[in-house]
């Protein structure tokens, strides 16, 4: 644990930035002082890559910048760099993430604490370049820590926190900081820029390759063939798999600790795992993830004005799945409607809906759970959409839960 700063230290006026989440993420990268950044442009991530490149060009960020020939190489460059001791960063999304998949799904197993933004984008086909969370949802079983931000400020703060989480010796896993394409990536608001010295104090020096290194001063083989049916192979392999699962579970504790320390030091408090909004006296609730929560909270407030007992649960940490926090939240209500910005084809619902259903297994009482899908391919999720979502969810209190999802933008024009 880092030293305890009991009170938020009296600080000078914070530096104010007026920027979108892509620039905010780039500032988060600057503050985290990575040794190496590799990038390849893809909408809606491109301006993030440009900001980082400009910061390097301006000397604001002292990092090696590798303009690789594709996302596959982007992450591969970082694998090499991390094994040589570098703190690293990249960002991608959508097809870029799909192309990156081969090194991507190896990253957590190498236990490399790489931080990577996903500027969430829907998947082709249909051909599209707009926001949606199909990319991150599709890779949620791969073993990265996956955090989803609601606001631009949270993006900046979470990038920095992500390095503490990733490099924690009980975790040693890569972290995806997700922010929605379009609405966050290009949505400009006022944010505060933390002081570099305070971030330095918060983060400490990179601690990246103490467990596996490619260094002529301490030779080893990294990733020898492991497994098979005989000899020490099976047990070794199970050990690594289990260790990875343990690292993910440890991350739940570390994510909470890091967010608490962030709040103490920087005065901004975020629910680390699951946010409960007006939930304590709610009879039913929406479950949301990502930037849609803003309009959804406005809708909840409006419904409350009308006397409707609705609350909201926002998932910040999707991987590892925050089972206890989610069960505690779900246990407070009698019905939930889960709004997904992606599709689970196999279940004819949304991925977060499926996650919620699994968590409900651990709830003492039965809670009907409706799937609502919206915000695909850049579609807007407005307060009006969430008012409908609230009405559909309220209906679960009096009638059976439909198996079909509600497609929120199906009637938009």
């Amino acid at each position, binding site marked *: 644990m880092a030293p305890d700063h009991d009170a938020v230290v009296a600080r000078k006026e914070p530096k104010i930035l007026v920027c979108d989440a892509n620039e905010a993420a780039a500032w988060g990268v600057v503050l985290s002082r990575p040794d190496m950044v590799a990038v390849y442009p893809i909408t809606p991530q491109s301006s993030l890559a440009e900001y980082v490149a400009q910061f390097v060009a301006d000397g604001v960020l002292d990092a090696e910048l590798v303009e690789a020939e594709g996302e596959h190489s982007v992450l591969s460059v970082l694998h090499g760099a991390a094994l040589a001791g570098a703190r690293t960063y990249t960002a991608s999304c959508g097809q870029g993430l799909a192309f990156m998949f081969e090194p991507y799904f190896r990253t957590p197993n190498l236990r490399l604490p790489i931080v990577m933004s996903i500027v969430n984008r829907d998947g082709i086909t249909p051909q599209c370049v707009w926001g949606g969370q199909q990319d991150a949802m599709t890779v949620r079983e791969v073993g990265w820590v996956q955090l989803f931000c609601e606001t631009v400020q949270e993006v900046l703060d979470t990038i920095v926190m992500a390095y503490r989480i990733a490099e924690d010796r009980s975790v040693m896993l890569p972290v995806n900081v997700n922010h929605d394409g379009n609405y966050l990536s290009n949505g400009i608001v006022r944010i505060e820029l933390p002081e570099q010295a305070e971030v330095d104090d918060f983060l400490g020096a990179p601690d990246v390759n103490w*467990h596996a290194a490619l260094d002529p001063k301490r030779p080893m083989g990294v990733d020898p063939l492991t497994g098979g049916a005989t000899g020490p192979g099976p047990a070794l392999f199970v050990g690594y798999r289990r260790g990875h699962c343990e690292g993910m579970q440890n991350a739940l504790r570390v994510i909470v600790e890091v967010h608490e320390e962030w709040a103490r030091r920087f005065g901004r408090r975020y629910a680390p795992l699951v946010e409960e909004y007006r939930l304590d006296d709610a009879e039913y609730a929406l479950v949301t993830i990502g930037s849609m929560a803003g309009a959804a909270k406005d809708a909840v407030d409006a419904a409350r004005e009308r006397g409707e007992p609705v609350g909201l649960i926002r998932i910040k940490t999707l991987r590892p799945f925050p089972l206890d926090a989610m069960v505690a939240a779900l246990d407070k209500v009698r019905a939930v409607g889960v709004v997904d910005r992606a599709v689970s084809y196999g279940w004819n619902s949304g991925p977060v809906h499926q996650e919620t259903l699994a968590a409900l297994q651990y709830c003492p009482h039965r809670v009907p759970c409706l799937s609502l899908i919206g915000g695909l391919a850049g579609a807007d999720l407005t307060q009006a959409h969430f008012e409908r979502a609230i009405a559909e969810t309220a209906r679960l209190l009096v009638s059976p839960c439909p198996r079909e999802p509600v497609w929120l933008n199906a009637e938009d024009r």
Partner: protein
Amino acid sequence: MKKQAVPLFDASAIPKTLCPIATEYSRMLPGDWRSLRPVVDRRKCVKCAVCWLYCPVQCVVERAGWFDMNLATCKGCGICARECPQRAISMVPEEDEEMT
């Protein structure tokens, strides 16, 4: 022998459940793959080192007046015998050797 290798990473303090790493030299010796064994005729050997140059497992060892093979690692491929300009190496079936 000029040593080049640096001591291996001491992994004793590293949990065995993180990244798969290999930090002990393999002790596998492929000498038992061999069905033919190279036998060097010391009188013919002029130490030209052609056998060393072409031996895939690099099992050729220098003796005072000739080159010999380390049979712990020699796989018996026969390249040395084929390439030796002096015809100083012959490949002898293992079972014959055992019986002599």
